[in-house]
């Protein structure tokens, strides 16, 4: 449902932009107060044991800090599964804590991320979050459809063919072109629920949109297009939707009041720890 309403809101927004064609923007100076510092945790673990898994710890800053966020170093970070196995993460660059190579999250397992800071932030040193890896179907297939009416030079719609397992599921999609992640920030990720095709075959539903007027997304013969389908928890899907709400353009017409995005970490830290399985499908553009 969230997906459809997000989609609807986007449609209305697109329509209204047409209306507000006369509107203009200009940069302004605003003076903002500073709130207290919080721990920020950014990290997911996936079933893909060929990629590296990193948990990044940083500090929140004043809003106009305008630089890389200050890393949180020298923390003890470990991952504990529901069988009691403990994996230590190693800090390879400041604030970046890596899981050992070859690690992959297992479906149905519950993982706990346990962080012990060397120095307290917001009066606390211990932060914890847990996540259970949801299940996913067997295979996905990819398709491409050209939509010439959209935009200046048309769009390619990346299509997904997949048997959705019965029951409520939430999916996140990433798009790669020649191994470069196009959906490289949270606001670019496509997150949907299966409300409209629960337990059915998703006969070519659009999961990514490649704007042929945008240099990085233009397809040429020989390009390899890949999508990654991730079966995420409801909590993580909501988290991404809320982040997308807060960082997208807000207008008095359509936006609700700004609100903080609450993650799943204890102790008031910001961010989300989650684990999910992934499937890939690729094709060569001809």
């Amino acid at each position, binding site marked *: 449902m969230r997906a459809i309403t997000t989609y609807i809101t986007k449609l209305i927004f697109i329509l209204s932009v047409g209306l507000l064609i006369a*509107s203009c923007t200009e940069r*302004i100076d605003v003076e903002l107060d500073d709130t207290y510092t919080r721990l920020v945790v950014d990290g997911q673990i996936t079933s893909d044991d060929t990629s590296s898994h990193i948990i990044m710890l940083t500090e929140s800053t004043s809003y106009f800090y305008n630089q890389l966020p200050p890393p949180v170093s020298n923390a003890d970070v470990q991952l504990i599964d529901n069988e009691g196995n403990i994996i230590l993460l190693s800090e390879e660059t400041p604030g970046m804590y890596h899981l050992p190579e070859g690690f992959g999250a297992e479906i149905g397992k519950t993982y706990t991320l346990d962080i012990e800071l060397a120095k307290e932030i917001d009066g606390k040193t211990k932060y914890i979050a847990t996540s259970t890896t949801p299940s996913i179907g067997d295979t996905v297939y990819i398709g491409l459809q050209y939509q010439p009416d959209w935009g200046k030079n048309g769009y390619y719609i990346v299509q997904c063919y997949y048997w959705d397992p019965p029951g409520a599921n939430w999916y996140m999609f990433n798009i790669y072109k020649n191994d470069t992640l196009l959906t490289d920030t949270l606001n670019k990720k496509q997150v949907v629920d299966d409300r*409209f095709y629960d337990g059915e075959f998703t006969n070519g539903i659009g999961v990514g949109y490649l704007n042929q007027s945008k240099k990085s997304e233009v397809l040429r013969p020989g390009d390899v297009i890949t999508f990654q389908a991730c079966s995420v928890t409801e909590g993580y899907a909501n988290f991404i939707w809320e982040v997308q709400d807060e960082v997208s353009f807000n207008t008095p017409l359509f936006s609700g009041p700004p609100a903080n995005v609450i993650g799943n970490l204890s102790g008031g830290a910001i961010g989300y720890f989650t684990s999910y399985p992934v499937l890939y499908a690729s094709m060569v553009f001809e």
Partner: protein
Amino acid sequence: MNVLISLLLLAAFVMPASLRAEEGEADKNKNTISGYVKNAETGEDLIGATVYIDEIKSGTVTNTYGYYSIRLEQGNYTLRFSYIGYQSVVHKLDLKEDIRLDIELQPRGEQLQEVEITADAPDQNVKEAEMSVIKLDSKTIKQIPSLMGEVDIIKALLLLPGVQTTAEGSSGFVVRGGGPDQNLVLLDEATVYNAGHLLGFFSVFNNDAIKDVKLYKGDIPARYGGRLSSVLDVRMRDGNSKRFSGTGGIGLISSRLTLEGPILKDRTSFIVSGRRTYADIVFMPFASDKNMRNNKLYFYDLNAKVNHIINENNRIYLSGYFGRDVFKNQFAEMKLGNQTATARWNHLFSRQLFSNFSFIYSKYKYGLGSASDDEANSFEWDSDLEDFGIKGDLTYYLNKKNTMMFGFSSLYHTFNPGVARGKGGKSLFDEWIVPKSHAIESAIYISNEQKIGALLTVKYGLRLSTFSNIGPGTVYNFDENFEAIDSTVYDKGNIYKTYWGIEPRIGLNYLLTETSSVKASWARTKQYIQVAQNSTAGTPLDLWFPASPNVKPQVSDQFALGYFRNFKNNLIETSLEGYYKAMTNSIDFKDHAELLLNKKLEGELRFGKGWSYGVEALVRLNGLPLVNGRISGWVSYTWSRTWRKFPDINNGNKYPAPYDRPHDVSIVTNWDISPRWTVAANWVYSTGQPVTFPTGRAVIGGVILPIYSDRNAYRMEDYHRLDLSVSLHGKEKPGKKWHHSWTLALYNAYNRHNTWSINFVQEQATPGNPNSAYETYAEKTYLFGIIPAITFNFKF
């Protein structure tokens, strides 16, 4: 509850008797003067015209159908009929038997401007018991400089004290700190659920088809109910019953045409009025982006009305409104529209007992969908709200001291929150239906306006309202964390929840002198249906939802006190009003609420309270002589605050409502320099809107996530704007039927970039500078720079 209904009914019959008893035997020697007051040029009834009787230094006013009635001892009387903008008529009579006296007043037309007008302007604002009321006629509205030359009733109301806009350009309005859905908007008695066109930039009311506009900001009469904050009562014109005529205009973005005339002279008349915007046809073909050239963006609307005088005691009216908006671009399309229809029957049971019975239909619907229907994602979504209703309003002109009103109303609501489904053969979407729900909203009321001595007038009334949810319906049950635990399904016809409440309305007016008075009022109002909307300006996607087992009706108590004083034979009216309004069971929404297509919408609601208070000062000029012409307009200043407190929002701390704007100034002037030239100007100022700003940031997944301040802890910069217009009227000759004028308007004349929204934007990453992706800046969006417009208006 039945006991209460009986009591009210009893009161309706007993009160007149007891009030009459007060005058005792004297009634035998009394007779009634009654009739209609009409516009001499068009034959249309005049609403709120004053009938003043010199001998008793008192009088009455015509009701919404132009009818008046007054019962007096036999004798000789001098009656003065007056109406603003019209020449007064003085009529002397010897009252020996009941007299029917229909009066026609001549408008002060352009050709009459050289005539010295000495008649007094009406002094209703001082003498009448009602307070917190704004009256505007279509002529005043027409003279206010407007955006793109589109004359707009709601934009005119926004210039009056106590009425604020929700956002620049919006048709949403806020009255004394109440939400935009707390205004009952009536067009010929039918509810208009969404009064905006084109996302609210224009209102649904076509000024050419409108006769009279009255906004009750408080002190709401007992005959109205169902909304907490205000009633906007808009009356359509009846059509010229004397001769066929037309009015029209050609503007930059729209044209309009009104035709009216008698079907049977002086008995049956009609009016048809239409409007169509054509910005898409005029501008889109020239768009630089080829895809934009096929965009559709327009609205049209149609008002139509027929009325027929059957005989002296019976008259019927049929009126309707139909409006539709269409937007379409390459991705999506949206259609929305209002429809209303009213059939009314005016019946005089006697010269003292006037009645009107109305049958009402009203519908607001919208649909949204993808533009194409050959994709997996193609879908469409429809939602609507439909009302059928019946109303009866009776006025009993008991004697010169008492005027009673009583009546009933009943509305059957059908809420269809939405059906979304796939579109076209390839769509994957199953149907997603948020079930309809049904309810009956009814009320009975009785009120009396009583003159006590020469100086005091008291108005008191009771309204008993009820609201019942009727099956079929599905109600979710929620735990204390607002999570749905289970649901209950009710069968067709099953009344599964009923609320009721008593709404007292009391007001008094004490005349201090002939030209000044103090007034006080208390009104309790209840609201049973509301909009799920958490944006400040409001989208057209209004989702009305009813009170239910999970949602209690909202209640408001408003107290107001005012001082009214007129100068220069009422050519200058001044008033100072203070109010305090307390609201309970107020509704707001949880953070990141899901309002559309949500079967468990009620789980997204949070309940709390609100309160607002303020002082409103107004100086209004009614055609004060200036040089060779006359100046009209007003200056208003409002100081007000409006607060909300919800246990589950903003950590339970109070916060300013999104439309809390402490200082608000409007200056509206219209100066007829000469018979041919008119200049008009208005200037508005208000404190900036409260907003929530980030006070920190967290970097997650490559985005800069704001960490916010308390809700509405900051403000946008102050808003101010000047609009100007100048009109040139064609040369007038006696007997000439064709009149035309040109109006040149400048909206936002000094080109102020008033903030519409503020966004915090992440800088584009530049290669080689790792920090560049982490830079953010604040950016304001403003909608309008200076906007000139030219309009050609004609009348024949």
